[in-house]
C-alpha cells in the first residue's frame, strides 16, 4: 500500500511546476512564509549586525536609570489572588532595582485575599493594600491603583507571575533610551510548560508570537499589545489618557491609546516574567475567545479612527493596528477562502495537497523554532519543547483558527464581549450603551 502511495505522491509533485505549486499553496507562500520566515530572518540579521550598537545604547540607558533611580509604583490589581501574594513579594524582594512601592488592589475577592493582604500590609511587605468590597472589573482596579501611585513609572503585574532578578530593571531601561517611549512590554513566558501538552504548545506559541513576534513588531515600530502580566508605563502618560478603559482586551487598548497620544511603545525581550498558562484546552478556548473578541471590539470598532486620515493620523499607529487586523482578521477570512478554493478547484488532488501542506508547515515551524532559539536568552531550556513543534500545525493552523473564527463571528455580529462575566454587569451595560 505505502509502496504505491509514496512514489505516486513524489511523482505528482515533481511533475507540478513552480507556478502551479504557488497557485495551490498561495496562502502559505504569500502570508505564512513571508511573515514568519522572511521577516524573522531579515530582522535577525539586522539585529546581529547592530548588536554592538544596541548593547552600548542599552548600557548607557542602564547607567541613566541608576543615576536617576526614579521612584516606581508596582501595581497588582486582581480578584482572589491572595494565595499568590506572599510568593510575589518574595520574588520582588530579589529584584536588582529596589526603589519601588507595591500597591495591591483587591477587586471584590470572595476568598481570604483581604485577610492575607491586610496582614502583608501590616508586616510591611506591601506598601498599600486597597480593597473594593464590590467588584468593578480589572480596568477599574488598575485605575484605583494608579490613582494612589506615587511613582514616576508604573509597573503593572499579574499576581501569579514571577520574575527574573533583573526584570524590573530591564523593563525600565527603555524609558532612558528614548524619551518618547511611554510604555514598555515585558517578555512573558510560560512557566508550567512541562505540565501538559496544552501548556507545551502554548509555550511554543508564546515564544513565537509573544517573544519573537514582539521583537520584530517592536523593531518595526508597530508593536501592539503590552501584556497585562508585565508592562511598564510612564505615569504622566497613563494619567493623561485616564488609565485603563473597560476590557476585555484592555492591555491592547491602553497600548493603542498611548500610541494615539503620540508616544512610542517598546518591547523589551530581556525583561522576563514567567506565568502559568491554562493547562486544559477547555480553559484555553475560553481565554482565546475573550482575547480574539477584543480585536474586533477595540481594533475594529473603538479605535477605527486610526484608519482614516485626520488630525491625529500617525503611520506607525495605522500600521500597528492594520498589521494586527490584517494578520488576524483578514488572514482568518482568507484562510477559509483558501480552503474553499482548494476544495472546489482541486478536489481530485486533495490526497496530494493535504500532506504537502502539512509538510510545508512542519518544515516552517522548525525553521521558525531555529530563529526563536537565536533570539532567546534561555534557548537551552527551551530545547525541551522541540519535539512538540510537530503538533504546532494542528494547534495554530487548525485549533486556534477555529476558535478565532468563532470569536470574530460572535463579536462582529452579536457583540458578545459585552456579556462576558469577566466584567461586572453594571460596567458592561454602560460600556455597551456608550459604544466603547
Amino acid at each position: 500500500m505505502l509502496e504505491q502511495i509514496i512514489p505516486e505522491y513524489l511523482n505528482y509533485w515533481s511533475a507540478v511546476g513552480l507556478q502551479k505549486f504557488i497557485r495551490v499553496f498561495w496562502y502559505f507562500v504569500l502570508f505564512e512564509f513571508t511573515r514568519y520566515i522572511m521577516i524573522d530572518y531579515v530582522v535577525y540579521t539586522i539585529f546581529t549586525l547592530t548588536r554592538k550598537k544596541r548593547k552600548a545604547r542599552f548600557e548607557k540607558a542602564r547607567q541613566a536609570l541608576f543615576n536617576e533611580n526614579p521612584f516606581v509604583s508596582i501595581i497588582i490589581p486582581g480578584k482572589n489572588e491572595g494565595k499568590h501574594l506572599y510568593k510575589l513579594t518574595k520574588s520582588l524582594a530579589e529584584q536588582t532595582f529596589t526603589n519601588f512601592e507595591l500597591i495591591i488592589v483587591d477587586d471584590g475577592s470572595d476568598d481570604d485575599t483581604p485577610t492575607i493582604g491586610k496582614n502583608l500590609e501590616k508586616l510591611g511587605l506591601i506598601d498599600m493594600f486597597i480593597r473594593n468590597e464590590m467588584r468593578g472589573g480589572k480596568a477599574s482596579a488598575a485605575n484605583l491603583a494608579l490613582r494612589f501611585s506615587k511613582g514616576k513609572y508604573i509597573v503593572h503585574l499579574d499576581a501569579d507571575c514571577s520574575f527574573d532578578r533583573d526584570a524590573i530593571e530591564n523593563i525600565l531601561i527603555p524609558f532612558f533610551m528614548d524619551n518618547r517611549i511611554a510604555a514598555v512590554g515585558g517578555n512573558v513566558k510560560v512557566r508550567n510548560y512541562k505540565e501538559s501538552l496544552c501548556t507545551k504548545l502554548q509555550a511554543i506559541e508564546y515564544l513565537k508570537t509573544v517573544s519573537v513576534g514582539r521583537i520584530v513588531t517592536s523593531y518595526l515600530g508597530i508593536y501592539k499589545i503590552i501584556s497585562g502580566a508585565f508592562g511598564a508605563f510612564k505615569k504622566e502618560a497613563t494619567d493623561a489618557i485616564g488609565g485603563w478603559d473597560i476590557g476585555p482586551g484592555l492591555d491592547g487598548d491602553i497600548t493603542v491609546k498611548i500610541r494615539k497620544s503620540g508616544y512610542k511603545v517598546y518591547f523589551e525581550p530581556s525583561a522576563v516574567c514567567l506565568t502559568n498558562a491554562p493547562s486544559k484546552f477547555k480553559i484555553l478556548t475560553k481565554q482565546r475567545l475573550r482575547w480574539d473578541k477584543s480585536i474586533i471590539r477595540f481594533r475594529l470598532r473603538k479605535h477605527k479612527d486610526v484608519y482614516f486620515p485626520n488630525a491625529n493620523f500617525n503611520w506607525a499607529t495605522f500600521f500597528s493596528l492594520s498589521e494586527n487586523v490584517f494578520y488576524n482578521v483578514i488572514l482568518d477570512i482568507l484562510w477559509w477562502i483558501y480552503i474553499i478554493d482548494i476544495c472546489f478547484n482541486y478536489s481530485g488532488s486533495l490526497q496530494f495537497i493535504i500532506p504537502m501542506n502539512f509538510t510545508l508547515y512542519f518544515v516552517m515551524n522548525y525553521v521558525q523554532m531555529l530563529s526563536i532559539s537565536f533570539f532567546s536568552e534561555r534557548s537551552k531550556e527551551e530545547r525541551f519543547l522541540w519535539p512538540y513543534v510537530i503538533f504546532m500545525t494542528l494547534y495554530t493552523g487548525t485549533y486556534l483558527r477555529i476558535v478565532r473564527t468563532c470569536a470574530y463571528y460572535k463579536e462582529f455580529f452579536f457583540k458578545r464581549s459585552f456579556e462576558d462575566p469577566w466584567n461586572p454587569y453594571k460596567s458592561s451595560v454602560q460600556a455597551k450603551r456608550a459604544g466603547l
Partner: protein
Amino acid sequence: MLNVLRNNETKQTLTAQGHELLVVYRTSDLPKDWAQYAGIVVNTDSEKTLLEIVKKVRCEQGTLSLIPLFVNELHTFQEELLSHTDGKVHIAQVDTIVKKAIKINKRLGQIITPLNLSVYEVQIQFKTLAFLYSRKRLLTPFTSRKSKIGYYFPMLSLWNGDDSLGILKALETMQHGGLITSTFKDHVHLCKNCSGNYLNFKEICPSCHDADIQARDMIHHFVCAHVAPEDDFKKGDHLSCPKCDKKLRHIGIDYDKPSAIFLCNSCTNEFQNPQIQAACFDCEKENSLSELLQKTIGEYSITAKGEQWLLNYHTSLKEEKHSHPASLKGISFPIFKLMARQELKRVAATGTQSTLGSIAFQNDEIEFFNSDMKAAIQAEMEKIIQSYLTDVDLLYSEAYNKFYFLLPDTLASNCERLEQIRYNLSKLLTDNLTDTMPVVMHTHQLKKEDEIDLLLNTL
C-alpha cells in the same frame, strides 16, 4: 414552733426552732459580736445603709464575716449589692429564714479558720473557698464602672474593691492550684501600664499615629472605569468624572461606591486599614491592641480539692472526741489505737512501710436521718471498705461518715485498693443521694517519730 418578734434593749430578733435571727435597721444596730445569732436580716430601704452593713459584716476576719445575711424582700436593691448577701427573704416566714441560716451555719461549722489569716493570700483564699462552700454557690462577677477592671466580685470586692486585679490574680492562683474551677464569662482588656479598663479606642494613621484621620468614599464610574476618592469627583454641588467629564447621576446605574479610604490630615497618608489604639483615661498611656493585657473573667466554683483544703483545717483543729463506743461490727477505738501504736513500734524496729489513713465525707441529707438509718448506712459503708481489706488490715468506723484504717506492710502510693474504696463509696453515695460532697481520703506512712494520737487527730 413560735415565731416571735421581740424587742429587747432596742434589739429586734426573730426566733424559730430555738435559733435567733437579728433584725438590723440601721448600721448602728449591728452589735460587736453578732456570732451569737444564727443570722442577720437587714430591714432597710436605704442602699447606703445596706452597703454599710454588708461591708461591716463581710469585711470581718474569718468565718465571722460569713454569717447568713438576708435582706427584707420589701425593698429593692441592685443585684450587685444583693450578691454580697444571702438573698431576699420574707420577714414573716421566720421558719424558712432559719432553715436557710441553719444550712449555711452547719457548713460553716465544719470550717475552722486557719491560723495564718493575717497573710493576705490566705485570707482571700480562705474567704473565697469558705463562701463558696458554705453557700454552695458560684462566684459570679458583675460588671461595674466603679471597678478598675470593669468587674466586681461578690464579697471579695467589698473589702478590697480597689484591687480588682489583685482579686482576679488570687482567683487565678487558686484555679491553678486546683482549688476552684471556672467557666468562661468574659474577656477584659486592660491598660498595659496601669491595668485600667477605662480605655478610649480610636483609629489612627498607621504612618504617623495621629488620630486626625477622615474617611472618604471611593467612587467607581462604570463607563470609563475611573476609580478615585469622592473628592476628586466633586464639582460644586454635583459629581463629575475627572476622566471622561460625564456627570454622575444615579448610584448603582452609572457609578457606585465600592469602598472607603482614610486620609490623614496630619501627614496626608492615604490608607484603608487604620491602626486601632486604646488610650487609657487613667494614665493617658497609648496602647496598641496587641499590647493590651487580656484577662479572663470566669464564674468560679469550689472543687473537691478546695473542699479538702477547708476540711483539712476542720479536722486538724477539732477537739479529740474519739470516746465513741465500739464500732458496730469492727473493733473499738482503744483497740484500734493500741494496734496502731504496736504497728508503729514494729515500723521503728524493722523499717517496714505501713500506712495509717482516714476516710471522710459530708452529707446534709443523711445528717437529718434518724440514728437507725445512720447506723445502717455506717454498716453498709463498713462492708464496702472491709471487702477491700486483707486479714492483717484494721478498720475502725467512728461514724457513718468517718473511718480510720491501718494497712501494715502497705504503701498508700502503690495501693490500688484505696482508690477502689474511694470510688465505690463515692458511687454508693451519688447513686442514692441527691446532695453529696466528695469522699475525702487521707493517708500517712508511719514513721518511728510519729505520735498515734496526734496522727488520728490530724488525719
